[in-house]
């Protein structure tokens, strides 16, 4: 059984030799290509992740910008709308004011017209009354008074009527 635990120098030599040669051969033929392939892949994955992160950040920036611009734009729009409505209200008030002023003016004109027509009517009435009165008085007096005196008299009478004294005379 001692053969089991008795080291054999020759085999130790073979093992070391084979192992050392293997280390040098495999390092070149197996591990180097495998490791470089793996490292290249890891590098690529890292670069891809980096690129994706960068793209995401950029997209975020663009999105923020757009949102900000949208916010600004909507603010501007609402401002403009309020300005327009304010202006519209002002315009409306102006129009109403103008219209009411015009209406007032028309009313006044109409009133004036009515007044002047009233005056005219009253004047004509006065004239008529005067003529009638004259006629009546002529008839009453007969043809005593000549035409000259008649004219003088009618003039005086007209003046008196104009000054409003006729009512006393008549009344």
């Amino acid at each position, binding site marked *: *059984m001692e*053969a*089991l*635990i*008795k*080291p*054999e*120098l*020759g*085999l*130790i*030599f*073979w*093992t*070391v030799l*084979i*192992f*050392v*040669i*293997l*280390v040098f*051969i*495999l*390092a070149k*033929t*197996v*591990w*180097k*290509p*495998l*490791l470089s392939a*793996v490292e290249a892949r890891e590098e690529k994955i890292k670069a891809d992740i980096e690129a994706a992160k960068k793209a995401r950040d950029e997209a975020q920036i663009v999105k923020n910008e757009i949102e900000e611009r949208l916010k600004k734009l909507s603010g501007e729009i609402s401002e403009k709308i309020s300005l327009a409505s304010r202006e519209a209200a002002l315009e409306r008030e102006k129009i109403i004011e103008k219209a009411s002023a015009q209406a007032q003016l028309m009313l006044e004109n109409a009133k004036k017209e009515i007044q002047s027509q009233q005056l005219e009517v009253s004047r004509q009435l006065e004239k008529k009354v005067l003529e009638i009165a004259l006629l009546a008085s002529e008839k009453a007096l007969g043809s005593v008074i000549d035409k000259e005196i008649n004219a003088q008299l009618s003039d005086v009478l007209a003046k008196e009527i104009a000054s409003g004294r006729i009512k006393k005379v008549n009344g």
Partner: protein
Amino acid sequence: MELKEILEHHIIDHVYRWFSLLGFNLPISKHLLMMLITAFVLAVVFPLIIGSRSLFLRPFKSMIEIILLFIRDEIVIPNLGEKNKGYTPYFSTLFFFILIMNLLGFIPFASTATGNISVTLALSLTSFILMNFAGIKHQGLVKYFSHMVPSGVPVWLYPIMFPIEIIGLFTKSFALAIRLFANMIAGHIVILVFISFIFIFGSINLYLGLFVTAPVSVLLVLFISFLELFVAFLQAYVFAFLTAIFTGAAMNPH
């Protein structure tokens, strides 16, 4: 036939012939043959698998790659540090060399070269050289030996601690050799014993051996074989891992 003869036949190396080189007697033996087969697999089959674009070989390439990455990320970098990952080829060679020698033992008529104390001693010798080489290379010769005793130890303990640490260097490597050797041989011995049970009980009573002991023994042998398969991977990992720990400790003293 005695159990001793059976064990010797199955476990101990068979020397086919001796040949002499510069006064050394070098054996041409079965374990050497196994080692050469391993070397052939590693140096010829592995590059073929790696270099092939065949779809059939791609899973094998992935398996090698996964193990290689495991060795780099779990064995080399945690123990030796990120900047020393150039040692990865050494550790992956060590791992695959031991693993394939372990696995060859499962093939009928082949044998386990790592179940030979000479082979494991040789491997631990390379680990011993690596440890000291890496320590001296990274710290310098004087610093390497002066840092051998852990810092914080009282000065009067130095005369005791220094020899202990020097002996520790050798025992660490020797333990590596014994651990691998014993683990690989233990499973074989247990399997041989279980199979011998069939014949021992058979010689007492033929039917007892044939119908009772044989099924039980075969089941147990199957179980031990799976255990050995696991141990084959585990011990290859343990050897590489411990070598990495010792090398890392020699490189970066605390």
